[in-house]
Each structure stands twice: as C-alpha cells, then as structure tokens.
C-alpha cells in the first residue's frame, strides 16, 4: 500500500483537538471527541497495513470503536442529565458544578 495517510491522520486529530478547545456547545464537544477517536482508529488500521498485520490492527480497531460507542453513550447521558438541570448546553454553566 503506497498511500501515506499520516498527514490526514494528523489533520483529523488536529480538527478534533481544535473543536474540543474552541467550542462551548456540549454536542460540538462530542463531535470533537468523535473526531479524535476516528483519527486514532484510522492510525491503528493504517499502521496494521504498513506492518502487514491487518488482522491484529482490525481487532484493535474493533475494540476502540466499541469503547468509543460507550464513551458517546455516557457523554449523551451526561448531556441529557445536565440539560434537565440547566436547560441549555453551554459548558460555561458547567462551572457552577465545581466544588
């Protein structure tokens, strides 16, 4: 496989990081978290292709995706619970939960 996907992995990871650092909406933060996970999954699969161990890489990718779903489900449940308390999705209101 001659394609070099490393720049794309870094761009995707950077986009996820940018989203996490700049956005204040909780759903947008979830999108950023997902982009980080997708960049990681792509890096795992691509490294398996490079090292000619695609089966092992795919088994790792499956586990990463499964854990990713659980993270998303917990995040959405937290969003739901937070919205019931504050009626919005702004992370600035989360500061009231400190202490």
């Amino acid at each position, binding site marked *: *496989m001659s*394609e070099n*996907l490393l720049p*794309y992995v870094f*761009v*995707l990871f950077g*986009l*996820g990081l*940018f*989203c996490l650092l700049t*956005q204040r*909406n909780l*759903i*947008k933060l*979830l*999108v*950023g978290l*997902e*982009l980080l996970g*997708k960049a990681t*999954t*792509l890096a795992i*699969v*691509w490294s*398996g*292709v490079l090292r000619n161990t*695609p*089966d*092992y*890489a*795919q*088994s790792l*990718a*499956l*586990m990463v*995706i*499964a*854990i*990713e*779903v*659980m*993270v*998303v*489900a*917990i995040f*959405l*449940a*937290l*969003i*739901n*619970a937070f*919205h019931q308390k504050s009626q919005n*999705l702004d992370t600035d209101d989360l500061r009231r939960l400190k202490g």
Partner: protein
Amino acid sequence: MTYLTMAFLILFAVLAILLPSTLMSVLSLAAVSALLSIVFFQLGAPVAGVFELSVGAGLITVLAVLTISFIQARKVKKQIRTELWIVASFAAAALFFFIFNSLSPWVSPSSVPPVNWGAVGEVLWRLRAFDLLPQALVILSAVLGILVLLRPEKVETP
C-alpha cells in the same frame, strides 16, 4: 482514490465543526464515519469498515439525533420545503456517484488486498483473550453508569 475519500472526509469533518446547527453537525459526523469505513475497505480492513459503518455512522448518529430531539424544542419558523431537500439529496448522490465512477478505472480488483475474515476473529478470541474480558467489564460498567444517569428523579412528597 484513498486520497480523494480522505479529502471528502476532512471536508465533512470541517463542516461538522463549523456548522451552527447541532443536528447538521451530527449528520456531517455520520458522513465522516461512512467515508472512514470506505477508507478502511480501501486499506484492506473490511471488518473494521463494517463495524465503523454500522456503529459509527449508524448507532452513534441515532443516539445523538435522539438526544438532540429530546433536549431541543423544534423550531418551525424557518422551514425549508421537503421537495428542495429531496432534489438536493439526489443532486449530492449523483455528484458522489459521478466522482467515484469517473475514478473507477484506477481501481482494479487486483489492487484490493485479499482479506481473511476468520483471521480477525482468531486474533480477537485467542491472541487477545487476556484483555478482552477486562474491556467487556469496562463496557458493562459503562452500561450501568448510563442506567444510573438516566434514572428518573425521585419526587419527594411533603
């Protein structure tokens, strides 16, 4: 071909971040997942591709859209006609078909690496049996956490 798919993937990732509507943002993320699964197929990892397509583009999108519909009130002040959405969807699908079909001469069946479907299961259940159980416990504890988070609040009666 992989580069083109990755370019579309990056485009939809940027859209997912920049679009003001959270629903459109989540749908763009679903497009990112679908394109990522295409990349996995092109890299010779179809098991990961199928999983990403069904879970990433399917389950996560459904969960996110359901949550958004639960927590956000529907706005009816600016409603776009349904016919326009149908025409736009067909136009987008035709554009994607044209782009990928025009690039198909560069992709031959011999360029796709052979895949051993059973080998992934072999690695997962034999080689990685040690960490599979703890990860299953992590998922179980996450399920319990979600149940705790979503339980209805007790109403105290005076």
